[in-house]
């Protein structure tokens, strides 16, 4: 029986959540290390119970980073004395780029990746979705390929500054 259990069992849910989420706050995405797993919206909730269960969700069904992500979450929990907390992957509701935080979108842009539009922006644009170049801000851009260097990105180029760039796909 891990010693952590005795301590955690008596904790109010709010306090436990604070400890768990605090321990996970800085874990970077393995593919795009400028944003954290929280910014990406794949850490969904801490479900109360014995043991408490941390619910996570994958971005894409075949995302090769899924295992690395689970391992880094496990390690961070263990290091914080939260070995008792279990991790469970749930598919529903399916992950959407709308769950990427505002801070996360800004970090993506600063890193050179055009962030996905919010749901509201997408609705306003209907099917025409120009990407804004993360280097120069121009909307004079075109898609090179619907698929990019990772499952979550597409390949674009800017006609004004002539730079190619990654664009986070909206799903």
């Amino acid at each position: 029986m891990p010693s952590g259990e005795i301590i955690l069992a008596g904790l109010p849910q709010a306090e436990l959540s604070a400890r768990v989420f605090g321990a996970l706050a800085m874990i970077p995405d393995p593919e795009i290390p400028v944003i954290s797993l929280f910014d990406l919206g794949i850490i969904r909730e801490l479900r109360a119970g014995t043991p408490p269960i941390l619910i996570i969700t994958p971005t894409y069904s075949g995302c090769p980073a899924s295992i690395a992500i689970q391992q880094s979450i496990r390690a961070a929990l263990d290091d914080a004395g939260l070995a008792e907390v279990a991790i469970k992957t749930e598919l529903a509701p399916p992950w959407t780029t709308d769950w990427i935080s505002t801070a996360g979108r800004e970090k993506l842009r600063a890193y050179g990746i055009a962030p996905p539009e919010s749901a509201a922006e997408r609705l306003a644009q209907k099917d025409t979705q120009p990407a804004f170049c993360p280097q120069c801000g121009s909307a004079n851009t075109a898609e090179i390929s619907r698929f990019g260097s990772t499952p979550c990105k597409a390949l674009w180029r800017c006609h004004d500054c002539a730079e190619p760039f990654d664009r986070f796909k909206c799903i």
Partner: protein
Amino acid sequence: MPDDLTTRFGDDALILGHRLSEWCGHAPALEVDLALANIGLDLLGQAQFFLGLAAEAEAKGRDADALAYRRTEDEFRNCLLVEQPNGDFARTIARQFLFSSWQELLFHGLAQGDDKRIAAIAAKAVKEVTYHARFAADWVIRLGDGTAESHRRMEEGLDWCWRFTGELFAGDAASLRPEWDARVNGVLAEAGLPPPNPVRGITGGRDGRHSEHLGHLLAEMQYLPRVYPDAVW
């Protein structure tokens, strides 16, 4: 035999995912290489989810990996279309276009279905498959509406694959056919391609009667786990 439906969905995704992985490093352009690998990756992820359910329903202590790596070809339930060799790029695109267009409609339906766990996988996968279908349709149009050579190859690719499409609509899936026909015909019209020639359909994959190609595919895919059964990283 594991649960039929989840095995079918899982095997379709697994076998087509493997076929697409064969393009890795061989596609006509780097962007296409990345695209086909990404589509294959999505399909492998879907296969893992579906075969996980199939293994659980079977309750024989096997997992998704065991179903993927330790079954013989007559135990696979994928449709014949997905096991067909890649051929040239146009034939690969034809196969992807016909399959993804079907899978998109199928998953839209499954996502609303009664089985919550299948619905969860389908609701997640349909977002990915929508991308696959659009990618393939774009290429059908580009090749069909391209040079005389690309047009000829695209037409041949579709003609070749067409004989395997009837199998997709057996049983309950028959209800997907009108919508699928409309979509396929719409893209072909935009591509300036004629409707494929009527052919006698070939079926059997859903009953484990496969073409010889599947055995060769499995020989390669299953080699390592067969030769080193308990190998770990």
